[in-house]
């Protein structure tokens, strides 16, 4: 049933959609102005939704057109979705603010890269809000497609052949992911005649149809999330995009499909025995955390290193499946996994923005030639170092908090095996962060081609400070992200 204030959920999606339509129709400089003008509106909407959810302690639901599911479509904000909306509303405007110089529209004209960047950035925001709020599996398919169509052009925005190849590979993986997801949706509709997550969650049984559908949908979502071994598209795509786009792609976009995987396993299939598939997802995640970190260690370019680090950090997210699905310590696993989502979003966005500042200032991003760069760009290397702290999982940082929760979940459920990737990945992360910082802090004279923009450095620093501040999240925050999460057996917490 629709609750008071539920309209806000629709407006959270429609505001960036309106921005897209206006920007496209007006063209030219309007796109940038509209994006920056609507950013505060988006933040206020996200904050207000979070406040309403926290205040009522229950999910906020809106039935579009006053038409209830199964025939109509509902939007539903629970603690998890409200949190993700707020994170998006902080990171997207930060990336927009950072990108103003690079994507400034020439006087009296319109440029290819600027118009594309500003419109696609708004489209990512609209798509992510819909991913977080959608409660209908087909509506979520549309959201996934919006996300793909917004993200792919950002990868090849500078037009070099290798970026075009990276974008094309990304597109093909994403399309495979969408169609595999859609096939699962078709089967679920054939079995239950509804695609509403809440209604399905009440009806679902462990039939071959359901398991086939779940496998297909999960495979599709993993391809889009770039979980090992479907990760090969990610590093070239994220490393070749402009820094502001990389920050959004790595920090937020891959979390969109991950969020839907959570929705599928913890909201649609909560009553089923999911221990075995959850363990498989955890194992893939563990491999990703180790394998991605090892590959990150071997990269010669900073942006590629940071991109491979994303492959590794995505791995931790999937440890959430075995840990949060366990009867004992499940709440700890849920909190730890979510903390990892948030910490990585802020830390990785900050690191990509810093890598962009660095590449602009030095004219390259080859790590071997960073000798002495920390003296020339102290603020940027401070941001990289603090972001690295969170990736390694050292206190005080959101990354530490996440791993601490996950390790306690391992202990509570007796699944010690998952401690191996958590700790091993942390050590390897220490290795690759050291590889960036050691030459920069050492001797040498780098040639600074252009002095870094202080405003860009401060945006990145601001994001990394949030990643650290997450370490001090109070206990009610973890209660908040559990609002509306069904418990095994069909009850709601």
């Amino acid at each position, binding site marked *: 049933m629709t609750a008071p204030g539920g309209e806000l959920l629709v407006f959270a999606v429609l505001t960036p959609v309106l921005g897209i339509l206006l920007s496209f129709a007006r063209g030219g400089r309007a796109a940038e102005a509209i994006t920056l003008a609507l950013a505060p509106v988006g933040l206020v909407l996200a904050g207000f939704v979070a406040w309403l959810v926290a205040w009522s302690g229950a999910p906020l639901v809106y039935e579009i057109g006053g038409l209830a599911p199964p025939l109509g479509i509902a939007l539903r904000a629970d603690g998890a979705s409200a949190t993700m909306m707020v994170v998006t509303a902080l990171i997207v405007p930060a990336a927009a603010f950072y990108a103003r110089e690079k994507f400034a529209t020439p006087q009296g004209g319109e440029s290819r890269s600027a118009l594309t960047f500003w419109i696609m950035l708004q489209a990512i925001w609209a798509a992510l809000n819909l991913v977080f709020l959608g409660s209908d599996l087909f509506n979520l*398919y549309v959201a996934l497609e919006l996300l793909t169509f917004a993200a792919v052009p950002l990868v090849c925005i500078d037009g070099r052949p*290798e970026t075009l*190849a990276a974008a094309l590979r990304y597109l093909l993986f994403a399309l*495979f992911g969408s169609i595999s997801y859609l096939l699962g949706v078709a089967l679920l*509709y*054939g079995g239950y005649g509804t695609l509403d997550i809440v209604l399905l969650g009440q009806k679902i049984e462990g039939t071959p149809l359901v398991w086939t559908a779940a496998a297909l949908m999960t495979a599709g979502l993993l391809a889009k999330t770039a979980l090992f071994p479907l990760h090969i598209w990610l590093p070239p795509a994220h490393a*070749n995009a402009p820094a502001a786009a990389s920050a959004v792609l790595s920090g937020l976009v891959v979390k969109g499909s991950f969020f839907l995987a959570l929705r599928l396993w913890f909201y649609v299939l909560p009553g089923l025995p999911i221990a075995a598939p959850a363990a498989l997802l955890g194992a893939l995640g563990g491999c990703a955390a180790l394998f991605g970190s090892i590959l990150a260690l071997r990269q010669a370019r900073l942006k590629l290193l940071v991109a491979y680090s994303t492959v590794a950090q995505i791995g931790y997210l999937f440890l959430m499946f075995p840990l949060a699905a366990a009867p004992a310590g499940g709440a700890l696993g849920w909190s730890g996994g979510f903390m990892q989502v948030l910490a990585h979003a802020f830390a990785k966005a900050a690191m990509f923005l810093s890598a962009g500042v660095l590449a602009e200032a030095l004219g390259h991003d080859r790590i071997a030639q960073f000798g002495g760069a920390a003296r020339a760009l102290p603020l940027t290397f401070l941001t990289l170092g603090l972001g690295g702290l969170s990736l390694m999982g050292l206190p005080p940082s959101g990354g530490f908090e996440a791993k601490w929760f996950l390790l306690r979940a391992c202990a509570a459920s007796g699944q010690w095996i998952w401690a191996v990737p958590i700790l091993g990945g942390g050590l390897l992360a220490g290795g690759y962060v050291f590889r960036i910082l050691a030459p920069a802090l050492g001797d040498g004279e780098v040639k600074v081609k252009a002095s870094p923009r202080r405003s860009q450095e401060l945006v990145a620093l601001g994001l990394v400070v949030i990643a650290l501040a997450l370490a001090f999240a109070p206990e009610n925050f973890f209660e908040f992200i559990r609002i509306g999460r069904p418990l095994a057996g069909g009850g709601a917490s």
Partner: protein
Amino acid sequence: MTPSVLAGLVGAALVGLGLYGLISNPHPLRKLLAFNLVGSGVFLVFGIVARRGAAAGFAFDPVPQAMVITGIVVAFAASALAVALILRLAAASGKVTLDPRAWTKPGEGGQ
């Protein structure tokens, strides 16, 4: 065998054929064709679900059919974007390979 069961089996075969082509064919345009085969197979599954849901005087359940119409549009838009990328890639570099090794130049910084 009713037409809808037959169509379901055709859908399954198309998904299988397309998946095979998508993985095994190196040419991106051929991959795109294969993707479209998978897509139409998936739409057929929606189609038989709709046909089986015939009730209340309708020969079909309208909801899955509406979803197919939405899906066909999206699949076409995706094909158009992929074609644009493929043509531009071929024109800019003379290569249409997706092999990552073809695009890494040792010692090149990029950016």
